[in-house]
């Protein structure tokens, strides 16, 4: 059980933060289909930061700080990268889906290009293994699921998630941002700068997605940047729709998917009640079944939830001050 919770969190955390990234862009009125691309770019910059720090032997004795610095670099990179989307969607009033797709194509290309220049191979591997896991073997059994074999990113993401949810619902900027995604003309008529709010939403979105990208490769893919995040950005988009563009919904959606994904990855030695029997393995189902389940469930849930969920009304429509 402890193992299951620990592993589920590993998968849940990047999805949760990236789905929240989607919420911030779309609630301000910008469709951010580029989440995947931004994750890729952020993950590369984070990995590159660690690569340089390890090479220069910096912070060798404080890997947690190194991780946090890498996350911040990834977030900054994501924010900057997302400006391309904001600029095309807000200033140039381009189609946001096409703009986002362009970013999705651009990100792996840039990443691989730089990776090849830096490391002369298709991937950027770390000089040293990443020692990011926090182990607390002496802690009480009841606390183990949440405090043993954990990543600092888990706590950071949960804290960020709560802070940003409060920002969205309890502050005046949150109220204004949501108004811009629903009825920008109304927001404009009361003196809110729609362009600025949309930049704000998309930039926060870019930062979160970039950070999520690095968290994904640091905690799941051993820190290696190779121009892909295995479609996690698109999964996060699906979870955002499943969660109805609301933080509570996406937290639940990420947990559900994280659990299924964790079962898929670990079913062979998953011993839930600690009796020494791996129940799922005993069933004798092929490995493909467990690998497919998370995606099938997401498809099914989406098919049923999509009808009820309600996208921000003005998302995807460029706002033009002149048109009234």
């Amino acid at each position, binding site marked *: 059980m402890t193992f299951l919770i620990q592993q589920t969190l590993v998968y849940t955390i990047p999805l949760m933060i990236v789905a929240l990234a989607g919420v911030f862009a779309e609630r301000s009125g910008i469709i951010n289909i580029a989440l995947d691309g931004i994750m890729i770019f952020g993950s590369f910059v984070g990995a590159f930061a660690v690569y340089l720090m390890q090479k220069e032997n910096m912070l060798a004795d404080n890997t947690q700080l190194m991780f946090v610095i890498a996350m911040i670099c990834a977030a900054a990179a994501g924010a900057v990268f997302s400006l391309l989307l904001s600029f095309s969607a807000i200033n140039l009033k381009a189609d946001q889906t096409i703009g986002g797709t362009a970013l999705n194509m651009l990100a792996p290309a840039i990443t691989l290009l730089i990776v090849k220049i830096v490391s002369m191979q298709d991937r950027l591997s770390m000089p040293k293994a990443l020692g990011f896991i926090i182990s607390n073997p002496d802690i009480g059994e009841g606390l183990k699921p949440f405090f043993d074999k954990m990543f600092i990113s888990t706590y950071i993401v949960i804290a960020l998630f709560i802070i940003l949810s409060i920002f969205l619902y309890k502050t005046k900027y949150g109220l204004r941002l*949501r108004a811009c995604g629903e*009825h920008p003309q109304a*927001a404009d008529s*009361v003196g*809110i700068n729609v362009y600025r709010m949309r930049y704000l939403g998309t930039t926060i979105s870019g930062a979160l997605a970039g950070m999520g990208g690095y968290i994904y490769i640091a905690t799941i893919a051993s820190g290696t940047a190779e121009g892909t995040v295995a479609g996690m950005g698109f999964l996060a988009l699906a979870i955002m729709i499943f969660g109805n563009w609301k933080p509570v919904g996406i937290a639940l959606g990420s947990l559900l998917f994280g659990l299924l994904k964790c079962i898929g990855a670990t079913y062979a030695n998953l011993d839930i009640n600690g009796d020494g029997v791996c129940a799922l393995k005993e069933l004798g189902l092929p490995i493909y079944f467990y690998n497919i389940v998370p995606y099938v469930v997401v498809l099914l849930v989406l098919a049923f939830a999509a009808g009820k969920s309600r996208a921000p009304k003005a998302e995807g429509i460029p706002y033009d001050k002149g048109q*009234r």
Partner: protein
Amino acid sequence: MSDIIREEAVKTECESPYVIEMIGITKEFPGIIANDNITLQLRRGEIHALLGENGAGKSTLMSVLFGLYQPEKGEIRKNGEVVTIKDPNDANALGIGMVHQHFKLVDVFTVLDNIILGVEPNTAGFLRKKQARERVIELSKTYGLNVDPDALVENITVGMQQRTEILKMLYRDNEILIFDEPTAVLTPQEIDELMAVMRGLAKEGKSILFITHKLNEIMAVADRCSVLRKGKYIGTVNIADTTKEELSNMMVGRDVKFVVDKGEPTPGEVVLEIDKMSVRGSHGKKNAVNDVSLKVREGEIVCIAGIDGNGQTEFVHALTGLVRVDSGSIKLLGEDVTAKSIRYRNTHGMSHIPEDRHKHGLVLDYTLEENMVLQRYFEPKFQKGGFIRFDAVREYAEGLIENFDVRSGQGPVTLSRSMSGGNQQKAIVAREMDREHKLLIAVQPTRGLDVGAIEYIHDQIVSSRDKGTAVLLVSLELDEVMSLSDRILVMYEGEIVGELDPKTTTVQELGLYMSGAKRWGREVQKNEG
């Protein structure tokens, strides 16, 4: 005149009788002068109507007042002092607020959130809704604006949405309140309530600018009225000293008759018979049109009245074949056409003046002559072996243009998109009237047209009736419903809820049916949201 104004400007704030003045405003756009030396002076505490047809320059003038356009000439004064307004925020800072024709409300927000949006009371960014709520409740009591601050906007009535808009202005302590065509979306009862609210606001010292083209409302509520015509300022009159006729003369530039000339109807054979027709709604839950049965005879005008969005659009789409009927039948001249194509209906006696002339009436990027033969190009007269006989088309179009007085830049080869709305509508009317038909379905035939064009189209519809056509009119305009129809059927939530005789009924009675408060002669108890 200008000397007097200059003198006033020197006086102190409270001595100027005008709270806002726009003097000598001229605004040009390429090709047209939208505002030509217009002067508008609003007194403190008065209700001032701004009257003009579509395209008279009312919106441009208001955009200048809100800083959306900068005028080439002229100045704006607040309490006698010249001010510059560069954007809506400047206007807001001067206490100018506006209830837009299309409400600027966020559906999924509460009434309270909508009111405070942009001027949120907060501590370090965190919303302080409690004090805002108290203030809103207090304001709504003072001015008799009943709203539920915690209801979502999408769940409240249009009337309450409008009250929310008014509260938005009051919450911002606006002194100058502009109402842009506020009655277009309301039932007669709601209009009466709004008028009472406007009077109350004026009594409390607010100055109101009331933009409209409805003369009855001006006569009922305004103190003074300024009239614009074709971008020019015609004059300002005291309502107490004027008449409806004089106002309309000022607005149009000639005398206009308000009553449609028509004789008694002489109903003959049944042309259209609809039996228990239902059409599914777009959201799947409720039928958009539910169990509607009606008959239209030759030589009568039957009108479907109702507030926008009560199933009229779906009803007409089903009738004309644009969408499929789910159950029930449509008989045209005794023949069941429920499953027939649009072309079959068109060539078997149905003419249709559609609600949305851009979407369903014209191909905007086609020329006028091509649009004129849209439903007939396949007739032998207009084609030979699959090739269109353009000479015949040209001749035919020229005839229609002449007979129906359709005005355009280059005659038959004018691009439809470049024509004015009134002439686009005339072109459609010409096409539909000229085709052989026994049934004319006219949906909002005068929407957005000026008084002259309305008069013309009404005359055409009546003369068509007198020739023995069965006319089914769908209209949201109460004046049109009352003056044009021989029988009124009221549609509410997709059902016919009553049949009225325009000669014996009143607008108030009609309003009760339209808002669902009455059904087939009985009152309906209903909790308003």
